[in-house]
């Protein structure tokens, strides 16, 4: 990854429909209750904290479409594992 090429797009102001369409385009979805991000019907777990990722707090990084909970620990762990993203 080019160190100057990654643009971070905040979804904070994005409408729910937009986020749902975005997830769909990335082959992801949400569960019946609308709480958690799913892939193939299964909740997606943040690999760094081993917890299901909430729809209203997701972070999605390129590569293998890595879905994280948007918190400092998971973000810092991701950067540790992907120094090219720092």
């Amino acid at each position, binding site marked *: 990854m080019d160190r*100057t090429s990654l*643009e971070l*797009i905040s979804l904070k*102001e994005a409408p729910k429909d937009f986020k749902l369409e975005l997830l769909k385009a990335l082959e992801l979805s949400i569960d019946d209750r609308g709480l958690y991000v799913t892939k193939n019907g299964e909740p997606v777990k943040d690999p760094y904290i081993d917890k299901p990722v909430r729809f209203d707090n997701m972070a*999605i990084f390129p590569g293998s479409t890595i879905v994280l909970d948007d918190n400092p*620990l998971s973000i810092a762990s991701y950067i540790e594992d992907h120094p090219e993203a720092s």
Partner: protein
Amino acid sequence: MASTAKGVTEGTLDWSAKKISELVKRFRDKEVAFIQDKKNIETVKQQRETEEYKLLLKYVGKERLLVLMGLALRSIEKNPDRVQDLRNKIHGKYGKKGVHVAELVQIGLVTELLTRLVKLFGAQVDIEKTLTSFLDQSEDLALFIKKEDSKRIDRISKLVMDRVDVNPVHMMILFGSGYAMDVVKAILKRIESDPREYLIQAQIEGLQLSAFVFAPELRERLSHWSDTLPKSKRETKRKRR
């Protein structure tokens, strides 16, 4: 991250459905990432760039993420909800000991120790060993007092004195902030009245009280609280000459 990236785009995007295909293409090309809120990534980015983190990074190995989280905790101290959420995440991944280490960084104690060790030791390996030793023992050496502990002054005072007597470094560190400062003071008062005459060094910074309790036997030998930590073999040899 954003320091070398193009930055965070927020609130200025066209959120129309037709934009999605373009964004997804850029995502597949590894040009963009999506985050809920910029504040967390900015917290991480800012702390990674601090001189304090860069200094600590030279001497901590596997604990570096906890060190970074300690600095992150400090930077979000004014937002109790964020602090609690991050503490929960740290606890979930690293347990109580991990929270302890992060909190020791948060309150500045690890940096204080490191600054001292850098002056004391020449070799990086000696500094690393002593710092690691402290972090490994932090659960036994440090006690974070809460305001709820006001009901357990006697019990905690006894616990502190017992640990000081038993642990190999003969020292305990107590911390309290806000309302808990008075609880720490009450505990120290109780320890002070013990006939063994424990040595106590306390310092107040803002709304935070840190107190070091030492075994009476160390009274004549201490110039700094870190003097009780085990020295590396190299340092011991140097002192024997």
